[in-house]
């Protein structure tokens, strides 16, 4: 992959994406509430959040598809609300729903988008060949897109989105419904693009994918609740340390653990209970002893490093608590 078109490139000083206090309301519903962040050139920024959190709304605003209710967003240095057409020429977009033409073949789709993005005719063949190779669709150029498997479709959609070498890419849940092997290949492509200086903003609800991003933004109920590298998020999200507790009767053990000294949070996590405590080395043996005393056999607690999912659950829980508190406070006002 060649670097993005110089003519379309972002000015080096400004961040590739700069969002400030972005808000989007649909009637009484606030889909996006004062979101601010910035992404630099070549950065892979992941947006993580449950369905309906506002990820798609954010991406659509940045693509100029929705008009922000308040706040400002600049993509490649250009104000999205004021000059959406100038932004559109500088971005590639993969919408959540597959949106290439199923009744057209692989190359017909690519030719169409090359034409729409006014790719120079002299370069068209080369770029289409590159996109085909990148998607691993060599030999299937004339297959109708409707007949491709999910993973190939996604890679083709990515290939179509970079034909005009945009400096900024928006990918809205690009890997949903795709098998793990295809997902891994897809992420390799994203990293290649990033290495070439393309800024990638990608939304996902796969926790493991967040680890592939340079930085992650956690988003819930339209608010940005955390922003940082995967390591930073995991380190700072929990107040305390994490224990994985295995025992016989999880259902009976959980309320006991929740009520124990030094325990800040406890939740079922598969066949274990993940317990956030103030001091893992001291509380682990205490919990084991407590459960044994109550007749629950085989209790073993060992300290673990928090996963992205732990952080996510913890952060979303805190955000919900804050929202409830502020709502109560607002309600209490005369």
């Amino acid at each position, binding site marked *: 992959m060649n670097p993005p078109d110089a003519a379309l490139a972002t000015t080096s000083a400004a961040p590739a994406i700069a969002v400030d206090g972005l808000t989007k309301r649909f009637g009484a519903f606030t889909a996006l509430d004062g979101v601010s962040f910035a992404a630099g050139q070549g950065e892979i920024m992941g947006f993580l959040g449950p369905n309906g959190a506002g990820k798609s709304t954010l991406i659509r605003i940045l*693509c100029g598809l929705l008009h922000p209710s308040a706040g400002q967003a600049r993509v490649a240095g250009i104000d999205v609300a004021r000059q959406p057409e100038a932004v559109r020429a500088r971005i590639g977009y993969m919408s959540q729903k597959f949106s*290439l033409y199923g*009744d*057209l073949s692989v190359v017909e789709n690519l030719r169409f988008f*090359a034409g729409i993005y006014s790719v120079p005719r002299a370069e068209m063949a080369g770029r289409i060949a590159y996109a085909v190779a990148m998607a691993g669709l060599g030999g299937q150029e004339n297959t109708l897109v409707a007949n491709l498997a999910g993973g190939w479709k996604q890679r083709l959609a990515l290939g179509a989105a970079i034909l005009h070498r945009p400096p900024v890419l928006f990918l809205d849940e690009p890997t949903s419904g795709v098998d793990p092997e295809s997902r891994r290949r897809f992420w390799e492509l994203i990293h290649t693009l990033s290495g070439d200086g393309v800024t990638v903003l990608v939304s996902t609800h796969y926790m493991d994918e967040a680890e592939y991003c340079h930085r992650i933004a956690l988003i819930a109920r339209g608010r940005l609740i955390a922003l940082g590298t995967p390591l930073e998020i995991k380190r700072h999200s929990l107040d305390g340390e994490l224990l994985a507790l295995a025992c016989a009767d999880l259902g009976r053990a959980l309320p006991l653990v929740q009520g124990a000294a030094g325990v800040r949070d406890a939740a079922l996590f598969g066949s274990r209970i993940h317990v956030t405590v103030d001091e893992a080395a001291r509380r682990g043996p205490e919990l084991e002893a407590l459960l044994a005393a109550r007749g629950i056999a085989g209790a073993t607690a060992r300290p673990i490093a928090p996963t992205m999912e732990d952080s996510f659950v913890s952060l979303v829980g805190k955000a919900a608590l804050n929202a409830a508190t502020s709502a109560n406070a607002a309600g209490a006002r005369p």
Partner: protein
Amino acid sequence: MKLRRIQAIAVKEALQIVRDPRSLMIALLVPLMQMVIFGYGVNLDIRHIPLCVLDHENGQQSRNLVARFAASNYFSLRRAAGSDREVAQALDEGDCGIALVIPADFSQRLNDGGRATVQALLDGTDSNTANIAAGYAKSVVAAFSAAAQLDAVQRRGGTLQTQTPVGVEARVWFNEALESRNFIVPGIVALVMAIVGAQLTSLTIAREWERGTMELLVSTPVQPMELMIGKLLPYFAVGLADAAICLGLAVFWFEVPFHGTVATLLFTSSLFLTVVLCIGYLVSVSIRSQVGASQVALLATMLPTTLLSGFSFPIEQMPAAVQAATFLVSARYYVEILKAVFLKGAGVVELAVPILCLALYAAVVVVLAARAFRKTLD
């Protein structure tokens, strides 16, 4: 506007049309079927009205009169009744549209040089047909009286110098009905093209919204005007094929006399096609579901064209307010143009006014359709 983008869209749209042969077949077969159905179905001529005769005399003269009725194209003798009750029954049952009652002294009164009268009983439930049937009956009787008069004079050895009987003039009116197909069929061409043209494009945007391809398309730098032109071009080609089918059927199948030039026809038909394709596009942009868009396009073209284009109901006879409304119906101009091109051989100079109206109409719809397309999801 970039030619490059228009070309990309036109090629894509053409590929999609070709990849969907069923829809293409429908687009070409439907006008063919509609032309045939409407061409035969919409017919103002009234022929072969079932006739019931009650001949009280049953003499030479009365049988002559009945024979004249039977020989005319307007009536076909369905029943010879023996009594008034039978006549009443024939009309009641709807078996006959008209009954002719000839009195017993018919010949005698005629031979005495006096006036003979026959009674025509009409089924008035369809007042229009009844009116026309009465008119036809009068004309048959008038022809019969003229012949009878001539016959009587000749028998007396004289020559007839009487003037043409009053009422024969009315036959011109009825002769006009014989030609009704000639002015109806060009109107049907306009009707079919309006319906099919708007249908062709009514799905083109709605389909992209439904399939989810529009979200990506609006995120690209494509301009509304480019999208519209690119999408309309291939449908314009299909529409021209439809026009050729309709006009070809009019000339070669329905044998409507064609006195104009093909160039005039091509030019004016292209103009009208532009209008109806843009109307369909406008509907498609406004309504994001295929079913809804198709229904609205059908309603928006078929009703006004049928009622207000002047193809079946003369505009001059409409109330002033309705007449004013007809100026908003694009087919009105095309019907006017087609009739003039077909029957009078009119060229673009004679048709300047309707052509300019149609051009203005096309310009307005093009602008509306291009502006209606919003590149946002709000």
